[in-house]
């Protein structure tokens, strides 16, 4: 990809050195996310970074995605795992929806699908936020030249997250107990940016104490990649999501 900053190219070089495979960029106008990275498997010659063209510089997103690959490959091969969401995770969300919200008949029809959707969303957060915060810290320390893009991206992500506080389908809303992970990320963003305002909405929504506990876990565990699975597991335990997923050995 053209026009990447030297720092970003340096990160990509590290991915090549660490994994023995380079990254191929694929433009995808239909993506909902700005960028995703698919690790080369089953004999594939390249990792594939799909990106949706936007006006925002891609450097930070590329660096962030590359960070996940690097952290996975920092572990010994026997200690590399894939996160595998349970296909029935939605069943854990349904009680959260029905016990904390007064639903009418019109809301029970989409309940099952909404629960599945929320389960996927919560699992995605569980997998990506705590490790993503490690990657954000790493970028901030090792690549300060990406700081401006990082701050912009964090701000945009925070705006998207806070909009979820009012997200609803009929009367169905995201259960407050599952908001802890984005609350923790808001506290982390306040720490990273010195803004001090990202967590205010989560305090008002009664999420802050859970978010603080999650951030405490994040602070207390060692930062190396060896502890990434434990970090996710510890957050899951705090969020009541331990049985929603399993770890399976990584297969190249």
């Amino acid at each position: 990809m053209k026009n990447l900053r030297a720092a970003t190219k340096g990160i990509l070089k590290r991915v090549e050195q660490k994994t023995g495979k380079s990254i191929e960029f694929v433009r995808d106008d239909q993506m909902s996310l700005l960028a995703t990275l698919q690790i080369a498997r089953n004999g594939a010659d390249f990792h594939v970074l799909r990106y949706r063209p936007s006006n925002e510089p891609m450097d930070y997103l590329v660096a962030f995605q590359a960070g996940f690959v690097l952290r996975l490959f920092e572990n010994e091969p026997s200690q590399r795992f894939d996160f595998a969401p349970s296909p029935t995770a939605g069943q854990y969300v349904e009680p959260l929806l029905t016990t904390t919200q007064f639903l009418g008949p019109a809301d029970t029809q989409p309940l099952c699908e909404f629960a599945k959707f929320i389960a996927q969303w919560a699992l995605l957060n569980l997998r990506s936020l705590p490790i993503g915060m490690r990657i954000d810290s790493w970028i901030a320390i090792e690549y300060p030249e990406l700081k401006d893009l990082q701050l912009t991206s964090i701000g945009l992500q925070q705006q998207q997250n806070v909009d979820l506080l009012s997200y609803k389908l009929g009367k169905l809303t995201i259960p407050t107990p599952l908001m802890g992970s984005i609350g923790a990320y808001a506290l982390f963003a306040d720490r990273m940016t010195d803004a001090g305002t990202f967590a205010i909405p989560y305090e008002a929504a009664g999420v802050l104490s859970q978010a603080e506990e999650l951030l405490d876990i994040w602070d207390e565990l060692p930062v190396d990649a060896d502890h990434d699975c434990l970090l996710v597991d510890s957050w899951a335990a705090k969020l009541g999501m331990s049985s929603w997923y399993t770890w399976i050995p990584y297969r190249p």
Partner: protein
Amino acid sequence: MSSITSFNLPISRFDLNLLPASARKIGSDAFKLAVTMHFAAQYAAKGQQALVSVDDEEIQVLTLPADSDPLDFVMTMLQNGRIKEAVPYLESMVKSDPSNAQVLYNLGIAYSEMGQFDEAVIRLKRAVQLNPRHAHAWTGIGVAYQRMGKRELALEPMEKAVEADPEDGYGRRNLGAMLMGLRRYDEALAHFREARRALPHDAQTIYGLAAALDAVGGDDKSDEADELHQIVIRRWPGSEVAELARSARTKRAHISMRAKVGGGLRPDVMMYIASALDTFETVGPAKTQQIAFEIAMKGQQGLDINDPDQKYTLNSLPGKYSGMHLVSIMYAGMKAMDPDIETGIDLEAEYGAAMAMRRK
């Protein structure tokens, strides 16, 4: 961007433990005030301001830098057409600064735009109470009454607007239009003349002035009106106001045409029509339609039907024709295709006479 610009929080999500015990009854004024104060204090502690709006279902928070004017942000919303979204914030600003005439004015206009005229009038009246020189607020009251169908109540605020700022062209224009509706044409004309001085390039003002001149009447004024109509047609082609100007010119030409024969039948027109009907019989319906449409298109650019020396040519029919001749041909063509068609000019008497003559 390194801060959240706005967010909504359902009331059901708000942690009531953050409020004093006396303010935890959802929906109460104490609750709304406490929620507002909570966010205002939280953001103020971080060097920001928060505009907070609380209704029965949701809390809306708009954050902005401490040194900025909240009204600027809300004005941007209004200018972008996000009127419904802006209203809660304006309400919130009125609560925190009830003596701000400018905020009340904007809130009143927002309600007016949303069709909530009673709400609009209440805010706008409060604005002029605080600042009687607020011409736009007076105009806003007048417009709201007018849109409510209460024209008798609209005149006074429109007059107050002009008193408050005699140099404001829009105030003059609105009052002029109001007076036209009340058939007070001389007064309307005076205000439209002042409006034109302030707004020389405003289509509505020029058209309004022309309409007032036509209404007052007299040859000089009628000629001046016609010049203004031509300006409107030339400068704003295809606009609604240009169509109105074009209709006015057609009407004037018709009056002028009739005046030349004392209101009676015009033999020249009768002959033109008779001749055209002969031609149409020869060339057939398709060609007739082509000729009539070509003249109609030419008419869009302006045909002078009062100057017999001005000649025009057509692609679809050889020869040179005066404006009146072409209009007669077009009339005959249109009527031949559809006897009930509205042509924009009344040559019914001449058409009837020509038909009778041909039958003999």
